């Protein structure tokens, strides 16, 4: 491990053996009808690690249940407040039980039982004030780089993303994998065209088959929808096709062998490089696989990501609830325009001012510094975006996680 000169990581120990680099109170609304109350509860604490997450649907969904459970028991979460309207279908009993089992303080407020909006807000804020005081005094323990789980996503991609930011994030991933950390890359819909070269990096031939199948599934899914995972701004930035975007996006995975294929909510069992399959199984249901970047970020975090590397060319400003988002700006023109939002200026690679290896190390060291008290730009700016929608998945097959 090489963390000399970049501070020592400290983590909050959790009952499942994982450690958090943040100690957040998660306020989870269990239907859109409880969203306002949840938001109002959190507002006075918005700069004090109280983050709102939730599921807007009134009707049950196994995927959403699992996502909410994984997020509420994420190592960066120290306490949980659930806000229910009362008549929605979400199984709040099971979620509360799952969180309580981990030893985390949890309270559920049912708005209809509490006497409405005002009383629920008062009750919620009192619980949070109490929990914040406890969490702020919580002890930390040393944490090793090998204990980290790191995700990567790209959003607002342009013609520079695949040349600077994405391969630099890939270099950081290579270093983390070498140090024993678990790294997750994703968006199978943005690996269309790369499936064969990716499969060749699989730890076993059977895993290679699964990797190819996951991209074929994404291609089928998007073909049915009639759109690729491609936004108008991608074309504005010089990307002409989904294959071109994919080749650039694929560079985020670095050069390590691929250890496994996971689905949202699956936690990597050990260090290594994992592909997260984010496209639902079965026939096309519930619309777009990921309606925006934050849907993917939430899934990476549900897989245990302590931090997420976000490469942008056009200039995304988002952060996330629960885990810090590191913004890597691929385009030097964008960086100059939006420096306040960007943690890393990878565009200087195009300008001949730095190499991939140097920027990769900078990204690596920045993530480690987040475990030593540093905050990302999006955290400092109060970004806590979150979105969760309906999906359906089958569990992963036995070939997806070959034994070490």
């Amino acid at each position, binding site marked *: 491990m090489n963390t000399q000169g970049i501070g020592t990581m400290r983590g909050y120990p959790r009952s499942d053996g994982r450690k958090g680099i943040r100690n957040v109170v998660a306020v989870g609304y269990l239907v859109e009808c409880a969203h306002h109350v949840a938001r109002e509860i959190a507002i006075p604490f918005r700069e004090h690690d109280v983050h709102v997450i939730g599921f807007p649907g009134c009707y049950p969904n196994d995927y959403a249940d699992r996502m909410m459970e994984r997020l509420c028991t994420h190592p960066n979460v120290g306490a949980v407040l659930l806000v229910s309207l009362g008549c929605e279908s979400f199984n709040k009993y099971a979620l509360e039980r799952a969180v309580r089992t981990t030893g985390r303080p949890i309270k559920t407020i049912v708005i209809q039982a509490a006497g409405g909006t005002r009383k629920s807000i008062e009750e919620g804020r009192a619980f949070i004030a109490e929990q914040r005081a406890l969490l702020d005094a919580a002890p930390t323990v040393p944490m090793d780089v090998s204990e980290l789980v790191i995700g990567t996503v790209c959003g607002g991609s342009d*013609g520079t993303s695949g040349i600077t930011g994405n391969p630099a994030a890939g270099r950081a991933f290579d270093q983390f994998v070498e140090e024993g950390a678990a790294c997750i890359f994703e968006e199978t819909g943005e690996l269309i*065209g790369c499936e064969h070269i990716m499969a060749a990096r699989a730890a076993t031939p059977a895993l290679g088959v699964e990797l190819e199948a996951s991209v074929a599934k994404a291609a089928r899914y998007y073909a049915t929808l009639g759109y690729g995972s491609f936004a108008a701004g991608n074309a504005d930035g010089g990307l002409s096709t989904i294959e071109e975007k994919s080749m650039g996006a694929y560079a985020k995975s670095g050069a390590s062998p691929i250890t496994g294929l996971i689905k949202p909510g699956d936690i990597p069992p050990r260090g290594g490089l994992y592909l997260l399959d984010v496209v639902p199984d079965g026939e096309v249901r519930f619309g777009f696989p990921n309606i925006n970047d934050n849907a993917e970020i939430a899934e990476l975090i549900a897989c245990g990501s302590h931090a997420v590397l976000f490469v942008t060319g056009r200039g995304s400003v988002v952060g996330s609830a629960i885990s810090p988002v590191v913004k890597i700006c691929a*385009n030097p023109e964008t960086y100059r325009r939006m420096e306040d939002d960007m943690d890393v200026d990878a565009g200087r690679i*195009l300008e001949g001012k730095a190499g991939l290896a140097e920027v990769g190390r900078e990204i690596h060291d920045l993530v480690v510094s987040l475990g030593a008290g540093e905050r990302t730009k999006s955290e400092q700016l109060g970004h806590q975006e979150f979105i969760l929608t309906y999906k359906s998945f089958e569990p992963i097959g036995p070939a997806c996680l070959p034994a070490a």
Partner: protein
Amino acid sequence: MEPERGLEAPLQEEDVPAANDPRLLLLNDGDNVLVARTRIAEGEALHVDGAEIRLAAPLSIGHKLARRDIVPGEKILKYGAPIGSATAAIPRGAHVHVHNVKSDYTPTHHLLDEQAAAGGKA
């Protein structure tokens, strides 16, 4: 896939084949497109694969230019990999984008025509 040439160390002039203007990046020797490392103004003279061309329209950073003449139906190669097919003849030095390239998988959604109609506003 990593660009074959790699950008491991800062780009030096000698990394860029003399045949091409230093503001253009060749990501893989097999590619038939070059990528703009910076914004290049309309009317500028550029060396592309040894020949001098004059840029017909401004080229934005990250956008592509044909490295040589490309015939309709030919694969567009970038990073050494196919990224789609030409829908028209593309002469050396011309902008390679959604107006003359299509995906071999799913169609590309863009608002470039709308944007042009709105006077080029972002």
